[in-house]
Each structure stands twice: as structure tokens, then as C-alpha cells.
């Protein structure tokens, strides 16, 4: 955390000749800093994977080796553990419903924000931004009561509704920046050629926007997949993986915890890699 922490370690631009040594030292310091920061992010994940890929006896054993034993024992134990398979399946279902809901509701709003100027636009943006200033997982508390009344308690859809509240603002902001990047002239050209507004959106805008929309769908999936508090409050029988792991923290053996942690991390890693180009649109800020 301390090495290379000075932003002054940016690569040296052309400097006068006597400073060449200083410059070279600066460049080495910069490289060392980059390597250190990468290690800071990657090594802890690697250590979790070492545990997940070792036999249960190695996971509880001491001292630890720094290379995995490549024994499927821990993972098999995790997958066969009572309730894990169901929890995994529940997590996937909730995340999928969240994904569909947040894009289905969010994309039209993003389109409207990018294409129209109308009274009340500022109000809507305020509402979306406001969601960020609130601790959203707390919504699970009142909704738990509401869901019992409507029969949505302990259900996939009920939890997905809460997760959609978390994911919707991102879906709106991503699709907004996405549609803003597609020239309106393309749509106008389609209208002059006889397309209706809807046809123009479906045939001209959608094909261009599809990769970005897929990316924001993936974000919605990851948000739901990772959420712990609301999942733990709202599900009892139909627990998601995060809720299951949280509630069995006190009782579950170490191999189960680490294999479970790995099961949470790996899909997230793949998904973030798939959508890395859209990381910036997520925060409603254009990057060049």
C-alpha cells in the first residue's frame, strides 16, 4: 500500500540530461509500484483459490503450502453439502430475473433520457441519482413485511425485485450513455425510408446498442449474484448462495467456506472481464 504510493511516480516525460539517472530510477520505481499494486489485488484471490483447489485435509492443515494440491476434494465436498446445489440454482435464478427486469425497465428509460427533452426530466434523473445516496439493502426490512402480505415472501421473484432496485439505476445510466453515443441521424434516416419509430429503434438502434445492453445486463447479474444482506433477510427456505454461506459461517468447516468463496468469485471474475470496456459507462461518466 505504501510502495509507489506517490502519484509523482508517473512515467517521466523528457527531462534535461543531468536528470537522466533520476528519471531512470523514477521509471523503475513506477514499474515496481505497478507490480506491487497488481500483486495486492491478485495475490489474495490466488490464496483463496489455493485453498479451494486443495484437499480438505490440506485446507485445515498447517502450515499451508503456496501451491494448490489440485485436489477436487474441497469443491466436491462443497457441492455435495446439504443445500448448496439448491442455493446455487436459486442465486442463478434470482440474478437472471434481476437481469431481465432491470434491462426491461431501465433501457426504455435510458432511451427516453437520451432522445427527448421534456419537463420532469430533471426530476427523474434526481430520483435515479438519489438511490445512490441511500443504503439500499435496508429496503429488505419493510419489504419483508410487504412480501408476506402479498405471498412473495421467501420467493425468487421477491428477492429479484429488491435486487432490481439496486441494479436499475445502473441500467438506466449505462443505457443512457449508450443511446447517447448512437447518432439520432441514423434513426431519422430510417424514418424517411418509411420506418415507424419502433421499427427504427428495433432495426437500427438495437443492433448497435446490443453489446452495451448485454454488458449492463451482466452488471445487473453480478450485482444480484453478490448481494448478501437483502438475500439473507428475505430468503429462508429458498436461500441464495450468499445467504447460505453467511448463515452457515459459524458452523461450516473451513473447506466449505473457501470453496464457497471461490464459487462466488469465479463467475464474477469472468463477467467483469467480459464487460470491462463498459466499466466507465456504469458510473454515468464518459471516458473520452
Amino acid at each position: 500500500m505504501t510502495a509507489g504510493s506517490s502519484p509523482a511516480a508517473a512515467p517521466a516525460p523528457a527531462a534535461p540530461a543531468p536528470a537522466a539517472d533520476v528519471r531512470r530510477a523514477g521509471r523503475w520505481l513506477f514499474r515496481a509500484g505497478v507490480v506491487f499494486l497488481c500483486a495486492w489485488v491478485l495475490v489474495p484471490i490466488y490464496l483463496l483459490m489455493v485453498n479451494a483447489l486443495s484437499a480438505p485435509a490440506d485446507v485445515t492443515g498447517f502450515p499451508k503450502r503456496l501451491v494448490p494440491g489440485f485436489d477436487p476434494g474441497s469443491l466436491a465436498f462443497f457441492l455435495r453439502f446439504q443445500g448448496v446445489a439448491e442455493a446455487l440454482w436459486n442465486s442463478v435464478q434470482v440474478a437472471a430475473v434481476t437481469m431481465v427486469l432491470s434491462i426491461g425497465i431501465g433501457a426504455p428509460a435510458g432511451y427516453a433520457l437520451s432522445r427527448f427533452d421534456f419537463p420532469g426530466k430533471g426530476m427523474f434523473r434526481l430520483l435515479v441519482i438519489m438511490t445512490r445516496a441511500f443504503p439500499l439493502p435496508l429496503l429488505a426490512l419493510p419489504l419483508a413485511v410487504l412480501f408476506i402480505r402479498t405471498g412473495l415472501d421467501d420467493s425468487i421473484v421477491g428477492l429479484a425485485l429488491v435486487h432490481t432496485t439496486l441494479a436499475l439505476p445502473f441500467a438506466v445510466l449505462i443505457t443512457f450513455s449508450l443511446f447517447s453515443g448512437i447518432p439520432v441521424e441514423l434513426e431519422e434516416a430510417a424514418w424517411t425510408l418509411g420506418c415507424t419509430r419502433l421499427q427504427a429503434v428495433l432495426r437500427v438502434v438495437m443492433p448497435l446498442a446490443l453489446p452495451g445492453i448485454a454488458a449492463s445486463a451482466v452488471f445487473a447479474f453480478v450485482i444480484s449474484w453478490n448481494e448478501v444482506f437483502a438475500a439473507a433477510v428475505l430468503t429462508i427456505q429458498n436461500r441464495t448462495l450468499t445467504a447460505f454461506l453467511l448463515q452457515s459461517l459459524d458452523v461450516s468447516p473451513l473447506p466449505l467456506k473457501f470453496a464457497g468463496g471461490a464459487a462466488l468469485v469465479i463467475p464474477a471474475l469472468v463477467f467483469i472481464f467480459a464487460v470491462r470496456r463498459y466499466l466507465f459507462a456504469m458510473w454515468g461518466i464518459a471516458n473520452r
Partner: protein
Amino acid sequence: MPRLLPYLLLLPATAFLVVFFLYPFLLVAIESVTRQGAWSLANYERMAGHWKFSAAFWNTLLLAGIVVPIQLALALTMASVVTGLKAGRATILYIFAIPLGISDLAAGLVWLAIFEQTGFLNSLLTGFGLVERPVLFLGYQNPWAILLAIVLAEVWRATAIMMVILVAGMGLIPREYGEAAEVFGASRWQRFLRVTLPLLRPSLQTALILRVILAFEVFAVVAALGGTQFPVLMGETYNWQFTLQDRGVAAALAMVILAISIAATLVLLRLLHVPKEART
């Protein structure tokens, strides 16, 4: 019809946010000040009277107070590094952004693998002969070790959010400003302090508000590392709701978290005031 179209498109999202965002917050506010159908402050009294409350309250603030400044410095460093890179920018950015996709529970488990009694830190320490027997870091005898583990896990997991916002913000600053300062003899550190930081203020504001609110919501990392040794507000809320089955007190705690979140947001908005002309 064309005039109504934008409203029709916004209707589902607006309706959803009203039903599942504004209305539930109203409900939880009402729930916190009612007891058995009558208005009362009994929930707040019970909450404040519980022996764990003040520990949870101060722990949450302490954690945010330690974690957020470290994250700010680290995120600024990472963002400067990424902005300064020429080759391999995309790869480094992806590596730095990885924790963005990692659940707080998973982050807690990652650091548990390091700090638990048979974990990697103990293996390292005994390997070098620094301790004779593995130390129980996450037990009640070592409150500072628990705090350190939680701080490390939080810094590790949640710095990426700030970094991404700051990288985006730095990309918006025209290069000419820095070059002009260089012509006038400003060192790299001076350029960072006098040019980059002031121009970065809108992004800093966004990043800090977001991060501080998330810091007050800290829950699963603490549950994984500290268990019951280190009470925090969100964990206590969960306990009252789930274990003690008292929704009124849980609602009161939720209002406390909401109150400190809003207070922090207002303070940050004021401290890092962005003039209207400078907004984009």
C-alpha cells in the same frame, strides 16, 4: 402521442422506483416510530439501551474513518498510474478493477484464508520463525488484529469503485493544463496537487459520497472475519430483524444508518462544492 412518448418510456422505471424505493423507505421510517400500532419512541430507546449499540455505532464510524482516507489515497495512486501508462493500460485497468466484481462476503472469505489460525499469514510467520505457534488473530484477545483484517479486506475490495470513477474523471481533464503548468516549471507533484486535484473535484465528490455510504453499510466482510467480536450497525440490524425478530428496533437502526449516510452526503457536498458553471 410524440409528446407523451418519453413519459410512457419512463413510466415503468418511475413506478418501480416509487413502489420499491420511495414507498419502502417511508414504511421503514413509520415502522421505526411505532410500537404495537401506536406512535412511540420505544424502538429507539430499546435500540440505544442495548449494550451492543454504542459499540456497533462507533465501530462503524471508526471503520469508515480509517478505510475511506486510505482508499482515497490508494484510488488516486491507482488512477494516476493507469492514466500515466502508455502500454498495457487496458490490462492493468482490468486487474485493478477486478475487486469491483467481488462480493463483500467473498472478500471476507478471501482475507479469512489469510488471517485464520491455520491460514497463510501464520504459515508465513512460523515459516520465518517469527512466532512459535500459529497465532489466533481473529479471536477476542486480538481486537486490533480483527480491526486490521477488516480494514485490509475493505480496502482491498472497495477501492476499485473509487478508482474507476477517478480514472474517468482524469480522462476528462485536458492535457494542455498539465503541459502549461510544466512549461512554467511545476514539478510532477505540484502539477498533481495544483492542477489535477482541483479539476478532479466533481469526480472526487461522486467517489467519496458513494464510498462513504457503502462504508456505513459494511456487513458481510465483518461477519466473515470478526463474527460477533466486532459489532457494526448493519450486522446489528440483521440480528434484530432475523435473530431477535424485532422489526421495530431493526427499523430504528436502519434510520440511524440512513441518517449518518445523509449527514455524510451533505457534508461532502458542502466540502467539495462544485460551482454550477463547472458541472458537466
